[in-house]
């Protein structure tokens, strides 16, 4: 009957389908030397210079296609990463007037479109972020870049290869600030019709990689820029392909099925099976801090130093490490223990529940009168690692010493707003801590912006309204330490106070795990949010 015929057709079709499927394996890495990276981002970052989407955006679309005046040293794994000359070869502050900086710029550097790099380009780029009357002002890039250079008051080109920057007050951290500012090609902007949207389609910077094509939400393709000014960093690969895959499980599937060669941030649970399947896992500490930012508003239980210390002693960081498959560095302070700014704090942060209970008893708390704290946490978010399991685990261990933790779970976008709003805002609904992860790679972003008494909402991100003149004085000292030795010492003193006063709940630092096929060679994972892709080859 007709039905039987249809049934036979279906059977035949499915047999032929499975045979052909077996004959053709999908997604084999195409040409020699192409690296396909699966990013955690949901979309290709802004391509015009100042990237968006945080550290990962800057990692893949910032320092790849562009340079700043000051770059980061991304070539070694075993020491803290520091600043190195980028498009500026040297810089120093004027001895007489500490608000004046002179930058000597690199000669012979070219943009991707062929135009020459000169001081006027830097002025042009700073105008793009700071001067809203200039034709090249770009609100999107300004939103990203302006807050990174709070010290800059004015700037001018002395000659083609000398730049003078004047700051509002003496600030030794100007080089760190300028390391954020990426230099786009003014000539190219003019050539595409003075339109940033057109520039975005075909960008031009001075970086080692040239962006040749990109499709929103799907992929971006970059090729080496052979005329890059640093001959040691001209990329060896033929092509670099970036693919946004925000779902962790999907990302792992993509790696395992051969569709990409490298994924950022595999889910920690997937790592053992990835290792078993023959993939390489790289990781390294870097200036990342997963912490509870504590409220110091009146009435907050965290105002008592004994409570703060007790909480820090009550977190079982080794147990947490098991949760994360070992992919973390237990915190001993605000920065990594290996950081040059760690110093020698006296408060030793370990797991000591007995001491914690003692301290709480001293403070007047006990099993019948527990401390109650309310913490804002998010279910996900850039850099937040595995916020829910981690926070629940901390809740349990803190509960064991008599600190009752209550959570207010919000989604990531709301979280960012609550962080901006500050602890005194009604929006935080009485929460007295916020679980936020911090980029602690430079002194201002790492230390000052959290605890400077002038930087409370809405002027800054001192979320907890912390106010201690002693700390402000230490910050001032550091800002006025213009030699490297002085600066390191001053920042060590800052860090020692951070730890001795237990100003945050110090939990852990991420190690940026990455998984890649065994064919990827030559990658050195620097202790930095950003990475160097130039030395990589794919067999």
């Amino acid at each position: 009957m007709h039905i039987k015929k249809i049934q036979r057709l279906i059977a035949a079709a499915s047999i032929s389908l499975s045979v052909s499927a077996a004959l053709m394996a999908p997604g084999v890495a195409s040409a020699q030397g192409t690296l396909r990276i699966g990013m955690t981002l949901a979309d290709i970052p802004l391509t015009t210079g100042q990237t968006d989407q945080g550290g990962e955006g800057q990692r893949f679309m910032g320092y790849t296609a562009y340079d700043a005046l000051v770059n980061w040293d991304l070539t070694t794994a075993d020491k803290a990463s520091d600043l190195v000359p980028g498009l500026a070869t040297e810089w120093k502050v004027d001895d007489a007037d500490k608000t004046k900086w002179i930058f000597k710029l690199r000669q012979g550097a070219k943009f991707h479109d062929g135009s020459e790099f000169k001081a006027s380009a830097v002025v042009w780029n700073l105008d793009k972020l700071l001067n809203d009357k200039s034709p090249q002002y770009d609100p999107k890039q300004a939103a990203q870049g302006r807050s990174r250079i709070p010290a800059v008051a004015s700037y001018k080109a002395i000659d083609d290869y000398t730049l003078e920057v004047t700051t509002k007050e003496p600030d030794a951290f100007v080089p760190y600030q300028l390391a954020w500012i990426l230099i786009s090609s003014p000539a190219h902007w003019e050539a595409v019709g003075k339109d940033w949207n057109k520039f975005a389609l075909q960008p031009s910077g001075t970086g080692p990689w040239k962006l040749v094509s990109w499709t929103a939400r799907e992929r971006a393709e970059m090729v080496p820029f052979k005329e890059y000014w640093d001959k040691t960093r001209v990329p060896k690969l033929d092509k670099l392909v970036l693919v946004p895959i925000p779902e962790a499980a999907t990302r792992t599937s993509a790696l395992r099925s051969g569709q990409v060669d490298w994924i950022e941030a595999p889910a920690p649970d997937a790592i053992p099976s990835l290792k078993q399947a023959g993939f390489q896992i790289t990781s390294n500490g870097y200036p990342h801090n997963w912490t509870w930012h504590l409220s110091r508003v009146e009435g907050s239980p965290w105002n008592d130093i004994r409570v703060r210390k007790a909480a820090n002693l009550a977190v079982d960081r080794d147990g947490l490490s098991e949760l994360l498959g070992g992919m973390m560095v237990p915190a001993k302070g605000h920065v990594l223990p290996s950081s040059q700014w760690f110093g020698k704090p006296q408060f030793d942060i370990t797991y000591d529940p007995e001491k914690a209970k003692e301290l709480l008893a001293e403070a007047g708390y006990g099993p019948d009168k527990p401390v109650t704290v309310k913490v804002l946490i998010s279910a996900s978010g850039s850099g937040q690692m595995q916020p829910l399991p981690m926070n629940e685990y901390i809740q349990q261990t803190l509960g064991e010493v008599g600190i009752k933790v209550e959570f207010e779970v919000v989604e990531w976008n709301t979280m960012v707003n609550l962080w901006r709003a500050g602890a005194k805002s009604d929006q935080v609904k009485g929460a007295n801590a916020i679980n936020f992860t911090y980029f602690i790679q430079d002194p201002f972003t790492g230390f000052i912006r959290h605890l400077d008494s002038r930087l409370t909402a809405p002027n800054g991100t001192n979320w907890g309204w912390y106010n201690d003149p002693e700390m402000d004085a230490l910050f001032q000292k550091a800002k006025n330490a213009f030699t490297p030795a002085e600066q390191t010492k001053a920042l060590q003193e800052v860090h020692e106070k951070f730890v001795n006063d237990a100003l945050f709940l110090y939990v852990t630092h991420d190690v940026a795990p990455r998984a890649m096929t065994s064919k990827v060679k030559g990658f050195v994972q620097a202790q930095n949010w950003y990475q160097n892709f130039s030395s990589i080859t794919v067999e």
Partner: protein
Amino acid sequence: MISYLIRRLLYSVPIALGVSLMIFMLVHLAPGDPISAIAPADAPPDVIERLKVDYGYDKPLPVQFALWLGRAVTGDLGRSVATGQSVSGEVMSAVGNTIMLSLCAALVGFTLGAGLGFVAGYNQGRLLDKAATAIAIAGISVPHYWLGMVLVIVFSVQMNVLPAVGMGPGGSSDWAWDWAHMQHLILPAITLAVIPIGIVMRTTRSAVAEILNQEFVQALRAKGLSERHVLGHVVRNVAPTVLAVMGLQLGYLLGGSILIETVFSWPGTGFLLNTAIFRRDIPMLQGTILVLALFFVFLNVVVDLIQTAVDPRIKRA
């Protein structure tokens, strides 16, 4: 008939207006302001203010709505807050990808569904019927995004015969009708087809059973008409109902693919929506939902017309 068509089209206009108003309200009701997606967390307040002005968020809501609607009517859906590219451009290319996926899913779903429905209808009450019905009910009961994940594990990771994500080695701009690209369609299309299989099957089965049980079919058979003729008769009679359901399912496939596209990173309108929602990209969100909803309104009109043409009993007021 023509007057009904015109009346129906005219009704679509206030519906479209209502749809756009609702979208606008929904999107602006959402917690979290639009600027938080474009500015980094620690941007100073004056930068945020400036951004609000640049994007027009400082104007009162009704004014914003009127401006948006005015531009939308001319086809300009604004610029994406996140990428700066034209929303209409992005939506149109995404719609193309979703249509491709939906049509493949429709192909699989409708043929299998109708086929199973016929088998069941012809074998009412017997084992084949029960088996086919079981498949159909399973189809509409399974959480399809979960099924997608399972298929990825089995076919991509374990057996390594089909890819897990995306639309092909070169992305969507690089589409070609060869195996390297078409293999990316298979898993998402199958996953998406599961629900239409169920619904089409059940509708077809009940329609076929109804026709076959009518007395005049027995009469036709008694008169000696061949089975083939009877089948033709059945097909002619169930076609309108089944086609109407297929039309609506197509609408569901186009608009409801967000979960599948998320699991497979398929660059269609669903994926676009997902990213727009979480990045608070308001122009993109408004534009995408508007296009999808208008598509659906149009589809509803077409289905209504088919229904009315076939069965004049269903005249609406």
